[in-house]
């Protein structure tokens, strides 16, 4: 499988990159690490004819931390740079945990935080070569009118499988989104549409330029748990991200996010009502498990049985709570 002919562009500054995205809008893809996009080009699941590569733009690759203002991550900061950064390890260990679980060493060296957030949704019937897909009617995600996973569905159920999105949303992080001439700052959860076919809310002439995470609070504890077939390479079958803040044994803040069980990361709203103001006891744990299990709707679009993944939502939610509770 060879990559099709493309117009490959390497701007060395952000303004030029944004101008190129505007010029080639709707036929352009942005590439940073490229470990997902290049596979899509080989599989012909992306039909972009222009690539704008951000690797020469130094201003997008930086890590700035202030103990009061928090963390700013340039969008092309690699996952390996995050993993190896002592300040991030100390202040946002759950983010490091999530970055360490992406793929394997090579994917972490190539992959970027912005790229990992903007990962395309995945499905057994989509992430295949053109030749494989030719044997079946065209699916919803590829512009056809059939879903091979949920019969008669009008919506695409491809799953969002990025590893770092959950914990960033749990941290209530923000994304700086830039286009030619303007910039906006949105909560990370607003990057995701919930539409399996077009999962990322960015227009084709917009990119994430920075991720901002507020300063860690006293008593903050977070965790990212990932269910996958093997200990490396694989995307999640279930992802559970939990961030909490404790005063003594009482939880004063909590946010749990599920990934790989929906076309977008799912914030489990009831978690705050269950645990904030309380210490962890068996009733809280049971309520936590139920809330997680009821919030994720895995479908048969990846390895691992649906019932197993659904059950694991509850088991992993309990595990996550026990890991963070004092």
């Amino acid at each position, binding site marked *: *499988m*060879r*990559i*099709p*002919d*493309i*117009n*490959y562009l*390497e701007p060395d500054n952000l303004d030029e990159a944004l101008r190129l995205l505007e010029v080639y809008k709707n036929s352009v893809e942005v590439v940073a690490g*490229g*470990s997902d996009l*290049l*596979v899509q080009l*080989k*599989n012909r699941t992306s039909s972009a004819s222009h690539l704008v*590569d951000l*690797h020469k733009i130094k201003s997008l690759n930086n890590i700035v931390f202030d103990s009061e203002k928090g963390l700013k991550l340039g969008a092309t900061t690699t996952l*390996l740079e995050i993993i*190896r950064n002592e300040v991030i390890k100390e202040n946002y260990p759950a983010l490091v945990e999530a970055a360490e679980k992406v*793929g*394997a*060493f*090579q*994917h972490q*060296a*190539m992959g970027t935080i912005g790229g990992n957030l903007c990962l395309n949704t995945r499905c057994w019937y989509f992430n295949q070569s053109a030749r494989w897909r030719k044997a079946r009617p065209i699916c919803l995600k590829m512009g056809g009118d059939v879903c091979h996973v949920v019969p008669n569905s009008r919506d695409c159920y491809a799953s969002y499988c990025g590893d770092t999105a959950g914990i960033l949303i749990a941290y209530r992080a923000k994304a700086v989104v830039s286009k030619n001439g303007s910039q906006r700052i949105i909560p990370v959860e607003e990057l995701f549409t919930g539409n399996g076919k077009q999962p990322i809310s960015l227009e084709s002439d917009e990119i994430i330029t920075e991720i901002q995470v507020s300063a860690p609070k006293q008593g903050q504890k977070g965790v990212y748990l990932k269910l996958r077939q*093997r*200990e*490396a*390479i694989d995307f999640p079958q279930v992802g559970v991200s939990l961030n909490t803040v404790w005063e003594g044994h009482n939880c004063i803040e909590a946010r749990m996010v599920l990934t790989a069980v929906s076309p977008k990361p799912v914030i489990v709203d009831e978690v705050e009502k269950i645990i904030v103001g309380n210490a962890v006891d068996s009733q809280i744990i049971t309520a936590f498990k139920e809330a997680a299990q009821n919030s994720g709707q895995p479908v048969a679009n990846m390895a691992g049985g649906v019932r197993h993944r659904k059950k694991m939502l509850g088991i992993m939610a309990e595990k996550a709570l026990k890991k963070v509770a004092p």
Partner: protein
Amino acid sequence: MRQLINLRVNGESYETLIKPNNTLLEVLRENLGLVGTKEGCNCGDCGTCTVLVDGKPILSCLTLAKKMEGYEITTIEGLAEGEKLHPIQQAFVERGSIQCGFCSPGMILTGKALLDYKARPTRDEIKKAIGGNLCRCTGYVKIFDALEDASNKIAAE
């Protein structure tokens, strides 16, 4: 349209004509004749095509060749010094960590990236680092052993 690019590979400069859609793997093998880097899955799932770029392990099947101008690329051919094998290569030979040899270049280079960063990794750290390099022959144990041996040898030097 083909374009001329300059690549630094194993300390030498190469000028070669490529198309923008050529991957680094294709150019290393087909243009430069450096066939030590192997094509496995061609989609980033096996680690066979691993090379080092500025010391970091990357999947050459998922990297555009044009992108690599200005970086220092190390392939398996660049490890030995003449007839003298790199300690990791020597350890692989001595421990019997090579059977068909197809995963070995990628495996050794990923191991090198780890040992260049951390002198004496634990066995768990070794396992984690080479998690992205699949081997169908050896069952991995002798590979872990070889990397431990190499790390001890390098640290002692």
